[in-house]
């Protein structure tokens, strides 16, 4: 497979959604919640997300039961030396992948997962 290339058509202010398993959500001192850094790692260095404006949140929730949806921008993903690329999946054109830029050291990948986790904002939980 050819190396992924960043898609400039996905603007930096594009909101992306990623489903986070409930078990990977931690709580801070003030009761605030955020995803664990492990939620932004992938065995193949391709972290799945969806373009929010092109996705039905209810459909995404149905795909990922026992999960919460976290939002962040494409710019925040790129800020940490990542590529944001389209990756239509099972007929869903809103699916994208976030990949480290070529040559990015593994140490940086681990730290940047923590950074992106702290930027991600969990959508409110339904009562």
């Amino acid at each position, binding site marked *: 497979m050819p190396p992924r290339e960043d898609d400039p058509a996905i603007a930096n202010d594009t909101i992306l959604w990623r489903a986070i*398993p409930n078990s990977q959500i931690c709580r801070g001192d003030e009761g605030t919640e955020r995803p664990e850094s*492990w939620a932004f790692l992938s065995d193949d260095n391709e972290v799945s997300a969806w373009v929010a404006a092109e996705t039905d949140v209810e459909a995404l929730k149905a*795909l990922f039961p026992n999960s919460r949806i976290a939002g962040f921008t494409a710019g925040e993903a790129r800020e940490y030396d990542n590529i944001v690329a389209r990756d239509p999946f099972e007929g869903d054109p809103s699916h994208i992948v976030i990949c480290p830029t070529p040559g990015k050291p593994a140490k940086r990948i681990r730290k940047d997962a923590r950074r992106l986790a702290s930027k991600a904002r969990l959508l409110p939980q339904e009562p």
Partner: protein
Amino acid sequence: MSYAVLAPTRTQLEKPAQSQWSKVTFLFAAPWVLEALDIIAALGNLPPNWDGYGSPRIDIRARDAARRFVASVALPSLPPPHISPVLGGSVGLHWRCGDRELEFTVQPDGGIEFLKVLGADLDRDENMEEGTLRHEPESAGLKMLIWMVGTR
């Protein structure tokens, strides 16, 4: 000192992980350790694809190594860890104390990787360290945790 106050209750002993570890951990362990051991054991109940991204089940070797690690670092001064399943069949242990954090990833081969957060400003590279606990991981992890709860 009376050991009686630290003895397990019947309810605690009914849980398998707690009864398994009770003999070695009860006398000096932190109050959270028994619950942590049970949470780690329960990760074994997660099905394949537990995260929706195709992750395998949490490996029994990772669970055993995580339980050994937790039992070895169960200082009363430590807050309870947040315990997560992690991709690749690993177990994640996350401790936080103020703006200091330690994340340990316990892998199926028993290896333990760490991410140390030294300050709130994560964009400063010097505020994070990562690596692998290669030699006597429980002792090395304990030293890190003592640092985390130490004076600033």
